[in-house]
């Protein structure tokens, strides 16, 4: 059996860190979804892609830019014109969706091993994220389910709000350790728990 290794290596240290004497402001964790998939529709085939996504995942994705939804095991949000990022706790979503979509309607790219998902949650989550990204993280501007594609320095980050004070960040796996370290550093002042 092949051992699954974390891309974070020894940077992943469970426990409380930073200024946590009065409690931790955020929790940082690794959801490790089995599938991370980018799906793109050819121009004019958005409805076919949305239909295939709904048949395969049950996710009914809103069509406005950055619109998305989260269910128990699955999530999806818009990351660009005609493009969505989808996750599933189970492996194999790319193959299933590719078969359901058909190449005449669009493309499905399996990024499960190319991205790392990082979850940030807690009452100071908006505060910590606002240090890194020039986005409005208030829930009026960034409602639950919706997503944004942005970057921190040159590290592309796709961010979905999955709860009132919970976000999932998807970064390139090769940059995940570096990004994790800087995220933890930024969370030190509010105290953070890794788990």
């Amino acid at each position, binding site marked *: 059996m092949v051992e699954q290794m974390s891309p974070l290596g020894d940077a992943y240290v469970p426990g409380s860190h930073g200024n946590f004497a009065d409690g931790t402001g955020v929790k940082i964790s690794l959801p490790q979804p089995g599938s991370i998939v980018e799906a793109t529709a050819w121009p004019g085939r958005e409805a076919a892609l949305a239909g295939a996504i709904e048949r395969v995942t049950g996710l009914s994705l809103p069509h406005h*830019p*950055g619109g998305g939804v989260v269910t128990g095991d699955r999530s999806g949000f818009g*990351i*660009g*014109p005609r493009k969505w990022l989808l996750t599933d706790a189970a492996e194999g979503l790319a193959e299933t969706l590719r078969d359901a979509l058909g190449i005449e309607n669009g493309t499905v790219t399996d990024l499960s091993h190319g991205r790392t998902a990082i979850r940030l949650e807690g009452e100071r989550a908006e505060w910590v994220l606002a240090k890194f990204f*020039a986005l409005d993280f208030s829930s009026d501007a960034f409602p639950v389910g919706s997503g*944004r*594609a*942005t*970057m921190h320095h040159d590290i592309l980050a796709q961010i979905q709000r999955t709860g009132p004070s919970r976000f999932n960040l998807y970064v390139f796996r090769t940059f995940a350790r570096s990004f994790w370290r800087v995220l933890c550093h930024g969370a030190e002042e509010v105290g953070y728990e890794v788990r």
Partner: protein
Amino acid sequence: MLISCPYCGPRDVSEFTYQGDATRTRPDPASADAAAWHEYVYERSNEAGPHREFWQHAGGCRAHVVVIRNTVTHEISSVAPARGDRI
């Protein structure tokens, strides 16, 4: 400088990559007119004022956009999808 991406909304210019002058028209690919190709590849009018140019939102949705930017003031008067389709 902020560029209002048609998909993402206003974002810092650091998320965008300049892709060049959007006023040029490519000669017929079958043409061997050296003067026309020279003009297309090398000649730029270096406008002072509103300028039509390609940018890519590389640090965001990755869409290519056509921006009209005043090269004197950096005021941006228009941003539209480069391929002209809906967002």
